[in-house]
């Protein structure tokens, strides 16, 4: 069930509203006294960042998470429901909770859960530009979803809904647009700046360590904080969890996790990418049950769902991650291109290497999508930080709040101000790790693992063959939009099976086939396209 869900019927917008607040089954529930309809449901959460629901003297309802009077760097969400029926929502910089809002002319909805927002609305129009992004997400970041009536509420934005009208106010503008324009930083300050942020994290969240788990992939980013804490506070990192990769990556990942175990000594929890009970899109494969999907979905929700539920059952209420670590050192040469927006992105998409089965019709639509993308303001944090929202959502719905020491504007700006030679290959972070005598396999790994080979194995096993055949016959992308040439697709996949394609080409073809299937499943929910 959604962490936060609001549903507002505008038919009674001329009334003066009276609200009732109750605590029901772990939720704050706000109802309209006159109609007894539920308007807001917000999960009660005592652990960080804490939720609240206050009935103000004016008759308004004020609810959300984080401090009720939040400072500019604090994590919060504020939702106010006034007695005249107007609704105001203010977001923070971090936007840890995904937030979708939608309006179909009769109902206004806000939810962290795309499915819940979808189910609340009666009108769903396919955003064709979003469909192109669905098939090839590029680096895009935007407010659209696959449904034209549903958008995301982003960094520092304020949304007001009054008398059937939506007003969106942007947050403050970013002051520099390319990495080369960031205020210069001194690389020799890196240790003190990084460790200052780690110390602040420990100070703020140390009291939650008993209820926390540290997500460890074996990579540099996720390893940093638990290694740092373990050096400074031996025994404080009590639990660690990992999503185990498959094939030859499992061997190199195990080497890293083993090295971390030697330093941290946590209790470990694992899930495995090849868990046969958590295969991506398994409902679609086994029952032809096509659930609502949004292109924001991470692609392996089944495994994440299992992972989050396991951690929740173990009492985990906070998960520390390495999210945003890579983005600290990105090189942004053109902010619009980085966001997948505008002319620069459209031009790049003209020459981008696609697969043989993506048609020129698709390329044209993909280029147009970059030009049509809507956005209010350039984000102050790194672009990809916000793209990770759906991943975090799964944990939040299981009562586990994600925290990363790297999602911090001051740290991001400092790192972006470093000369390129220190950011390239995350050299300065690797230098730090070597100087601190952290395990060499972490900062100078034999392999840069990723879950892609798991997907390769699953596709090559034939698991998705029937689903592929089904959508080659019934799929809208193939048969209505003409974005994928099904004959070339099947020929390419047969090349994957027979081993005639090079490994890199094979992985790309399989990954993009996977995105295509996800898009086809998502499209089945639209009555008219």
């Amino acid at each position, binding site marked *: 069930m959604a962490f936060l869900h609001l549903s507002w019927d505008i038919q009674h917008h001329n009334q003066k509203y009276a609200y009732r607040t109750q605590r029901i089954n772990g939720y704050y529930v706000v109802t309209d006294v006159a109609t007894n309809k539920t308007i807001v449901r917000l999960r009660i959460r005592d652990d960080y960042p804490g939720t609240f629901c206050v009935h103000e003297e004016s008759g308004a309802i004020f609810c959300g998470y984080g401090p009720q009077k939040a400072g500019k760097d604090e994590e919060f969400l504020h939702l106010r429901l006034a007695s005249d029926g107007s609704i105001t929502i203010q977001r923070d910089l971090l936007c840890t909770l995904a937030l979708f809002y939608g309006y179909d002319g009769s109902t206004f909805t806000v939810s962290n859960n795309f499915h819940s927002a979808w189910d609340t609305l009666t009108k769903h129009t396919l955003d064709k530009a979003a469909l192109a992004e669905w098939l090839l997400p590029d680096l895009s970041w935007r407010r659209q979803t696959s449904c034209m009536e549903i958008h995301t509420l982003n960094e520092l934005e304020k949304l007001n809904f009054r008398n059937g009208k939506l007003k969106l106010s942007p947050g403050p503008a970013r002051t520099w647009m390319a990495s080369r324009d960031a205020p210069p930083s001194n690389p020799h300050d890196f*240790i003190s700046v990084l460790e200052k942020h780690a110390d602040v994290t420990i100070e703020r969240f140390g009291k939650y360590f008993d209820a926390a788990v540290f997500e460890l992939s074996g990579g540099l980013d996720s390893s940093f904080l638990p290694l740092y804490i373990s050096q400074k506070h031996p025994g404080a990192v009590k639990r660690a969890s990992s999503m185990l990769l498959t094939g030859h990556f499992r061997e190199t990942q195990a080497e890293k996790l083993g090295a971390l175990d030697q330093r941290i000594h946590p*209790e470990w929890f694992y899930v495995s990418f090849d*868990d046969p009970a958590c295969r991506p899109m398994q409902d679609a494969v086994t029952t032809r049950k096509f659930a609502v999907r949004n292109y924001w979905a991470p692609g392996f929700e089944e495994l994440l769902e299992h992972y989050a539920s396991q951690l929740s059952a173990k009492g985990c209420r906070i998960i520390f991650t390495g999210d945003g670590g890579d983005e600290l050192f990105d090189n942004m040469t053109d902010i619009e291109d980085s966001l997948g927006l505008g002319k620069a992105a459209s031009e790049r998409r003209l020459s981008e290497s696609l697969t043989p089965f993506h048609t020129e019709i698709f390329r044209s639509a993909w280029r147009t999508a970059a030009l049509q993308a809507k956005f209010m303001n350039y984000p102050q944090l790194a672009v990809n930080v916000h793209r990770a929202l759906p991943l975090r959502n799964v944990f939040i719905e299981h009562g586990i709040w994600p925290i990363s020491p790297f999602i911090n504007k001051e740290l991001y700006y400092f790192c972006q101000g470093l*000369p390129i030679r220190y950011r390239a290959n995350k050299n300065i972070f690797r230098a730090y790790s070597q100087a601190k005598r952290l395990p060499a396999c972490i900062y100078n790994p034999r392999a840069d693992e990723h879950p892609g080979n798991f997907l390769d194995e699953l596709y090559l096993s*034939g698991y998705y063959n029937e689903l592929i055949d089904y959508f080659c016959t019934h799929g809208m992308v193939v048969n209505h939009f003409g974005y994928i040439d099904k004959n070339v697709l099947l020929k390419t996949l047969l090349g994957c099976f027979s081993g005639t394609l090079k490994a890199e080409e094979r992985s790309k073809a399989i990954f993009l086939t996977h995105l295509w299937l996800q898009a086809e499943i998502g499209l089945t929910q639209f009555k008219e396209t």
Partner: protein
Amino acid sequence: MTLGTAETGVNFPFDPHGLIDTAPIQSITEFVPEAETVEAEREAFAQLIAEIDSVVSPELEEELSTLTMCKGSKAYDGAFPVKK
């Protein structure tokens, strides 16, 4: 043309790699490293910074600055310390 249905058969056994450590958890105490250790770390870091400086020519710096993403760029092939 169809792909037909191949054997699924993907059922890898779960292997925890023997990493589970059941050692008792120690109480939370702050460990303050000795000043010499901190100094040695900072010196090692400064040397590595100098090493990065020494291998990056102005031409390479210029090339890197045009790349949109720096992680694992071809110029460094993901290895550390950086190679000449």
